[in-house]
């Protein structure tokens, strides 16, 4: 059977979540691999959520926020941007390809953009293959390499 990636998405309530909803209402076909968690703002996305998701078996994580300058909470998306940049550097040292984490600005009216991003991201994760991070970590005999999350 072909590998079907498991992708966790954190979407902000005002832009990307509504945009993804619009994609559905507009009957735009998008991959079922994306499992969405709604947060009020992309600024709410704690980097630990992302690590936890990888730990629990996610193959990719997608963060969706409002376009710069359009944040419902003025500047939460900028906070998210800062954190994701830092986290990407950290992911490399954990042995996770930074392509598995993606931040996208999708507004409430961009159902088609959501469709495009979701399809493309799923495709890129599919070509990267399964992550199996937990198993990889557990394989290592020494416990000090394990990441406490």
């Amino acid at each position, binding site marked *: 059977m072909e590998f079907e990636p498991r992708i966790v998405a954190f979407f902000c309530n005002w832009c990307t979540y509504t945009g993804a909803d619009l994609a559905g209402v507009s009957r735009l076909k998008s991959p079922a691999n994306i499992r969405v968690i709604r947060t009020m703002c992309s600024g709410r996305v704690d980097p630990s959520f992302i690590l936890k998701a990888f730990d629990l078996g996610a193959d990719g994580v997608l963060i969706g926020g409002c376009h710069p300058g359009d944040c*419902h909470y003025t500047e939460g998306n900028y906070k998210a941007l800062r*954190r994701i940049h830092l986290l990407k550097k950290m992911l490399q040292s954990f042995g996770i390809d930074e392509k598995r984490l993606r931040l996208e600005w999708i507004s409430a*009216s961009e159902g088609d953009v959501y469709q495009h991003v979701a399809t493309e991201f799923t495709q890129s994760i599919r070509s990267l293959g399964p992550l199996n991070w937990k198993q990889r970590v557990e394989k290592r005999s020494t416990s000090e390499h394990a990441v406490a999350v």
Partner: protein
Amino acid sequence: MVTLKIDDKEVQVAEETSILKAAEKAGIWIPTMCYSDLFEPYGVCRLCSVEVIRGKRSRIVTACNYPVREGITVQTNSPKVQWIRKLLMELTLSRWPNVKVVKDMAARLGVEKPRIESLEKDEAENACILCGMCVNVCREVVKASVLGFESRGIKRKVVLPFGVQSDTCIVCGACALVCSTGHIKMVLEDYKGKKPEFTLGPKTSIYVPTMQGIPRVPVIDAESCIHFKTGGCEACAKVCEPNAINYEMKDEIEEIEVGQILLTTGYDIFDASKMTQFGYGRLDNVYSSLEFEMMLSSMGPTGGKVLTKDGKEPRSIGIVHCVGSRDTNHNPYCSRVCCMYALKFAHLVSDRTDAEIYQFYIDMRAFGKGYEEFYVRILDEGVKVIRGKVAEVSEVTSSGENTNQLIVRCEDTLAGKILEVPFDMVILCNAIEPRKDADAIRRLFSISKSPDGFFLERHPKLDPTSTMSDGIYIAGCAQGPKDIPDTVAQAGSAAARILSYISKGEVEIDPVRAWIDEKYCAGCRICNNLCPYTAIDFIDEKKISQVNDVLCKGCGTCVAACPASAITGKGFSDAQIYAELEGLLEI
């Protein structure tokens, strides 16, 4: 009061009134060519010469600047006066034989052909007759004193100082306005398309912005008003009987505290000059829909008459639909109202003129109540409708010269033919576009926009008037192109929503808030600066931070940032999100 006799009529006027004014009151005409109520009498044309008899003495004076005296008798048409006037008129006519005001006055005074041949004969129709009105209006009314006389006698002429353009000239046009021969002209350059109300011609600095507006009061455009430039003029204040003109008024910024805001910022029309093939802004007689609407208005620049640029009634009018809308190069959406107002134009034009009317449409969208019936009625009135997008509007040139004849080139998709139809006037149905400053407005209120740039509603079907921001509502074309009934319906619904909150007296807020656990807060103050609403205060006595529940909007930025995990986002706590993650990734 002074009593005097003018041509056997007894007149009573105030002291120091001029004879000319007194005669006017008595209904007696005295010819003038340099007099105006706007400034002090100049007395240069001498045509108002009258005979004043005081006791046994009689003398000739100029009526415009000679004050009345008790008991004088004035003869305005005695043989002596007639002789003087005729001689003056002969001199004037011999020098400027083709100027209309001179010819008219000569005819009125019975002068046909001058006996004198002038050495300085000027045969131009718009020659300067040296009446000095321009010089006087510039000095006394405008208070700019740009124009003046040069030389004396036969060499006299009106000039700018040293013959160069003056910095003090404010280009008000007062000199051109008073010039009776057309010697001074205002040339309007590059005014088309700047403001829709200007495109059909210039207007005054004091005007009523919209005739149907409430309150219907005039406004002064301080940028072009003479008074605000030189301190002069005040012509409007002089004629305003209730003294309502106030030059001291200033623009004010008032701050009003409100709980809810309805955004009805409207729309802009598509700038048709972007589609150069239609010739808007380049060809005369190609109008935007808004300009044509102005022309149809009985209070508009033509008083509701449909006229081409050269003032003639058009024989044929072409109406081009979908200019900038339903066009992937500009706006992909349908502007909704154009089909119906284009039909309305056709109806009004056929009411007022005998012009043949053509409509060039893509699809006729008569979507509302009674609209289809109106369309059928227009067809019955003989309006020709052609299905096809117009390719080009061009001007017919004959032997290298442009005529005012326009040609519309298009394909009739129903007949499968290429058409070229001649018109005297072409009206473009410009697309409805979001306001130029819509982005700035929407950021101010932190609401979103649709891909077309209009404000985004909370839900397209279930909540079309409110937005993602609580207390901010939208209505009308700010939300998307729509006609008047739809706008009224949407605005009414928004107003009802707003009123329901007001009558309730209290507002329910979302329970999604951040909460700081005092036990774990280390007082690092990282969250203080992160909060965009400054909802987190640092309590100095306790050395901890605290969330103000009223200010907090529940975005959770602080929750994610807290290094001690002391902040909980109610409704979106860490535990809840972890549980969600576990559930999602179970399979």
